[in-house]
């Protein structure tokens, strides 16, 4: 069997991911997360009298609480594999990466395990978030004063 034939067979046998289906799932799951967050905001504002800006912070904390809990319980991994970007782009993905890293390294101990590895995945978000925010803030100060 020569190389070309081999490549053809590999191409045939590799499962093809349905890109449009993936994108649609991401759209609907992501949208559902947005609606869920908006519902929490409405409930907080009308039932607890929290101001709008403060209710955004509460929503952030509640969404993170739910995703940390469900990751630790073990069923969030499957959801993320199915919904992909629909759950990665909301704050749920950030919380999921930290909690699953903590779960994976729990057996290595508190310092060398959890402490050293928790930000393995989410660290890049924090680092590049801080760097870009810092430089854009300098630009903002120059442009807007």
């Amino acid at each position: 069997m020569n190389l070309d034939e081999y490549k053809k067979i590999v191409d045939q046998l590799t499962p093809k991911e349905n890109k449009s289906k993936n994108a649609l799932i991401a759209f609907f799951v992501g949208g559902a997360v947005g609606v869920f967050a908006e519902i929490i905001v409405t409930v907080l504002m009308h039932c607890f009298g929290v101001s709008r800006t403060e209710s955004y912070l509460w929503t952030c904390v509640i969404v993170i609480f739910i995703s940390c809990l469900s990751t630790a319980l073990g069923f969030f991994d499957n959801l993320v594999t199915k919904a992909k970007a629909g759950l990665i782009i909301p704050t749920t993905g950030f919380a999921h990466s930290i909690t699953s890293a903590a779960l994976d390294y729990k057996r290595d101990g508190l310092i060398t395990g959890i402490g050293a590895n928790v930000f393995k995945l989410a660290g890049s978000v924090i680092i590049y978030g801080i760097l870009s925010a810092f430089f854009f803030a300098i630009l903002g100060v120059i442009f807007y004063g």
Partner: protein
Amino acid sequence: MNYLSAFIFTGITCFLAQLILDNTKLTPGHVTSIFTMLGALFGFLGLYDKFISFAGAGATTIISNFGYSLYKGAYLGFQEQGIIGLFSGLLTKGSCAIASVVVFSFVFVMIFKPRD
């Protein structure tokens, strides 16, 4: 009406992210970092305020809001304290996400045992 705009905004963001994931070799780590930096960029351009007034919690729940709140913290810090405010103010608004993630993940990981 608010729910619809939240649905559309978050949905389209995730849709774009999924397109990037499927059509390039970037990993989810790359995509979340890019979206965080885009949040800071849109904050600088003044667009993110408009996103929030359009989509409400839909815009504050995605990871880009983290970049935006870091930018906002640094910018407002400069207004209050000058150059040192850039450093001391940077994490003030984004602290909510980091602190809650660390606290909740640690507590739950201590309570529950990892599967397999």
